[in-house]
């Protein structure tokens, strides 16, 4: 019964904040424009604000008894709330009786300050004390994810602090922390995490099946006892697997991952943590620039189409263009000057015409936004490659079947966005790779030439042993 009344606290609690603030604004207005007849309005808003403040105090009292919050903060909130209610009553009484007129305004200011303080402490109780300041601290440190330590070698990582705790921190701590302990359960301290809350022991080290924690995590989302509550962000399967593994292997708070037993099933999940925060695989950079670009000139588009090329926006609502000259059989090098009016818009470029050679590169390199360039089976040589290093946004380069050599490819040194180069059927060999990888660190250079060996089983057939 009490708890039902208590749960109405969030319903009422915003009323006094708004209404008393309105009373404050009206009073301020009256001081500026005494001719404005708002005296009655001030009284009415004070009355309603006062009543809602009292209701909030009562419901809040029951909520503090039925739920598990940090005692100090609840006390603060409680007395601040009562102070608001009392001050509102006094002020209303004085105004109605038209007494102590010169104190009305100072009291109103105090009232608003109290309302703000009460609200802030209340907010800290429900959202966590660092809720308001978190975005600011993130600005200081660059961005949100930068704070997370990137695991370079998962085997060397601390099993709890680096693997399990980040999950709990993100999905559980907001309700089970120092200030707020739903169900009497606090998770940010190792001993309390093991101990559990009102419903029993949360973790039995070495036995993931018995503890309350795992049980609640695994219950169907619709189940009343499921955690986190269904409207909150849920744990992913990988996160569940990691917690299950950590408990099953002894729920140790100081061991490293390599010291714990690792069944086959968990290995890939652990490996996925490596090198990426939040167990997310590194996202490929977007192939299309994020900045919007102006619309392409229609007559320029038409001239390119007349060459037989296929030129299209990358998607609806985008002005960036992709162009393929695959069907442009009569193409000559100097025709490519027609792309210059579109140099801002061009992104994916596919040449596919053997007549295109180094002399066309001077036009291509003016298209600064090209992330993806397919020059396979063209006449480009090392001289053309030297020009390509002006394409600072280049991510993908295909020079399959060209005369480019390792020296030519080395000239792309300094292209930081570059991530893959395909140079099958060129003179570039595996032996050149050491030098190339030094010049182009982090770029996947594929020299191709893969073979699939012929196995005896490829050409023979299994025969039935002896047909029954």
């Amino acid at each position: 019964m009490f708890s039902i009344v208590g749960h109405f606290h969030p319903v009422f609690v915003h009323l006094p904040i708004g209404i008393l603030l309105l009373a404050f604004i009206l009073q301020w207005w009256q001081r500026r424009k005494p001719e404005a007849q708002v005296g009655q309005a001030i009284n009415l808003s004070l009355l309603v604000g006062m009543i809602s403040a009292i209701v909030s105090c009562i419901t809040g009292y029951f909520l503090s008894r039925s739920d598990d919050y940090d005692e100090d903060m609840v006390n603060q909130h409680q007395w601040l709330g009562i102070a608001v209610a009392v001050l509102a009553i006094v002020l209303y009484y004085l105004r109605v009786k038209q007494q102590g007129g010169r104190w009305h305004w100072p009291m109103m200011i105090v009232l608003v300050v109290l309302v703000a303080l009460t609200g802030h402490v209340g907010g800290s109780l429900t959202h966590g004390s660092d809720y308001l300041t978190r975005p600011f601290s993130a600005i200081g440190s660059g961005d949100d994810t930068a704070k997370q330590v990137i695991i370079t070698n998962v085997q060397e990582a601390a099993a709890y602090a680096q693997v399990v705790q980040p999950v709990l921190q993100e999905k559980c701590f907001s309700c089970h922390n120092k200030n707020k302990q739903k169900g009497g359960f606090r998770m940010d301290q190792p001993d309390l995490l093991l101990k559990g809350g009102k419903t029993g022991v949360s973790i039995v080290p070495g036995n993931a099946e018995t503890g309350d924690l795992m049980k609640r995590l695994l219950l169907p989302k619709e189940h009343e006892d499921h955690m986190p509550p269904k409207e909150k962000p849920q744990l992913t399967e990988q996160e569940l697997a990691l917690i299950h593994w950590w408990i099953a292997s002894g729920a140790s708070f100081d061991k490293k991952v390599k010291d714990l037993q690792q069944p086959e099933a968990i290995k890939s999940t652990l490996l996925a943590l490596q090198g990426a925060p939040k167990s997310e695989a590194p996202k490929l950079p977007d192939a299309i620039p994020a900045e919007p670009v102006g619309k392409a000139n229609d007559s320029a588009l038409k001239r390119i189409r007349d060459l037989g090329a296929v030129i299209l926006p990358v998607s609806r609502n985008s002005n960036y263009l992709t162009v393929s000259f695959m069907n442009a059989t009569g193409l000559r090098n100097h025709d490519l000057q027609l792309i210059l009016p579109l140099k801002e818009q061009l992104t994916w470029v596919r040449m596919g015409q053997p007549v295109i050679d180094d002399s066309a590169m001077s036009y291509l390199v003016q298209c600064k936004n090209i992330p993806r360039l397919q020059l396979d089976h063209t006449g480009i040589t090392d001289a053309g490659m030297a020009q390509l290093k002006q394409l600072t946004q280049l991510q993908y380069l295909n020079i399959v079947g060209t005369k480019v050599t390792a020296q030519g490819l080395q000239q792309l040194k300094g292209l930081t966005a570059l991530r893959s180069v395909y140079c099958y059927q060129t003179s570039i060999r595996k032996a050149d790779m050491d030098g190339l990888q030094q010049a182009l660190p982090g770029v996947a250079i594929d020299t191709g030439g893969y073979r699939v060996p012929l196995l005896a089983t490829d050409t023979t057939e299994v025969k039935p042993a002896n047909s029954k």
Partner: protein
Amino acid sequence: MTQKELHNQRLVNEANARALHHLTRRHFLKESAMGLGALAMGALLGGCGGGKEELAQTPFDAAHPLAPKLPLFPGKAKSVIYLHMAGAPSQLELFDYKPALMKLDGQDCPQSLLEGKRFAFIRGVPKMLGPQAAFKQRGQSGAWVSDHMPHLASVADEVSFLKAVTTDQFNHGPAQLLMHTGSARLGRPSIGSWATYGLGTENQNLPGFVVLTSGGKFPDAGKSVWGSGFLPSVYQGVQCRSEGDPVLFIQDPAGMDRDLRKASIDAINEVNRQQYAEYQDPEILSRISQYEMAYKMQISVPDVMNINDEPQYIHDMYGTQPGKSCYANNVLLARKLVEKGVRFVQLFDWGWDSHGTDSNLAIDVGFINKCRQVDKATTALLLDLKQRGLLEDTLVVWGGEFGRTPMMENREGKQNPFKGRDHHVEAFTIWMAGGGIKRGTSYGETDEIGYSAISGKTTAFDIQATILNQLGFDHEQFTYQFQGRPFRLTDVHGRVIEEIIA
């Protein structure tokens, strides 16, 4: 008068005669009843159908139906090669390693697995059948691939496995239709048709959607599995022959030179244009463009569709058998087509229906031979696309229409002559590679005997949604107005499988 002019004159005369025929009283009486009915019908349908706005949204330009169109967002994949193993390969002998099933080998299947279930052929209480293959973990990802596919095992790190795919159709035809058209019943466009409808073809000289078959038989669902359903017929899959000339009559017959061919197509198109001016039926425009495409294909097809031009080491890599009809040849052809800008290549390989009713369909005989037929070529496809820089934007999908039971099939309650497994809808494996799919991952799990999905369950709709997503389409917004309502490939289902997207 030259031969060319004579020829054209004949065609125009014939068209004029047909047009005059339409002015006769007999024709009027014969057709008017139907015609008026159709008129009324059209008004009725138009009345409940789309307004102007919807028409404008429908990206169908009858004059240039295969012109490339725009995806909703920039897609990661530009082409798709869908390798369908018709008949449904056994996941339990390939990718879903279940040592616990081995322990139950030969024992009676527990009642709990049979109650309330229906199987295509299993009756009574079948015996359990342990994995009939040796498994190892492969590559850095540690994916389980059996020794039946030693080549694919070597490139397991390129692939994302979906291990808990489910379906609700346990017969081949409906299950294949569901997989490719989003409905177990006939009449819906196939996924390749949707893709070409949405994106067109990059190469104006080739069809956007090409179908190749091997294994001696067509898939059980028939040609509907690559049909265009209610989409304009120009989007249906173009089936190429896998033996001899891929397209018949591609060469001009003796005595017919290229100019004469051009002249006759021009004349036919002129007749069709007059026809269009009279009737305004957009399908006539499609027909004109198809004639033009066929003319262009005479030049492009002999070049692209001839795998004999490929160097010997490429043939060795795929294990092709020139002149024969086989999967390896088709796979090599698929690579060539994708290289030339074909949007969707659909391969069907028949013969995976390992019931154990004869040695070709035995899990320990014919099935192994099927694996050997496809293993080398499939692996070569992935590596060849990779070395050409095409795997980044080509999505490769490999799988069947359903899975196979952990129980040994006992047709009509009697023991089959060979070891075999029945159709199974509750769990099977499909893999995807390239086209913006993660490398070396696995999503979804089955229980310890591989009977049903326990986590990461996916459906045919999810796979379709994922393929469309990689091509740049939101499967929930990519629709076609038909019979008064917008239709989707995934109907009201489907979720993009974000877990395997890079």
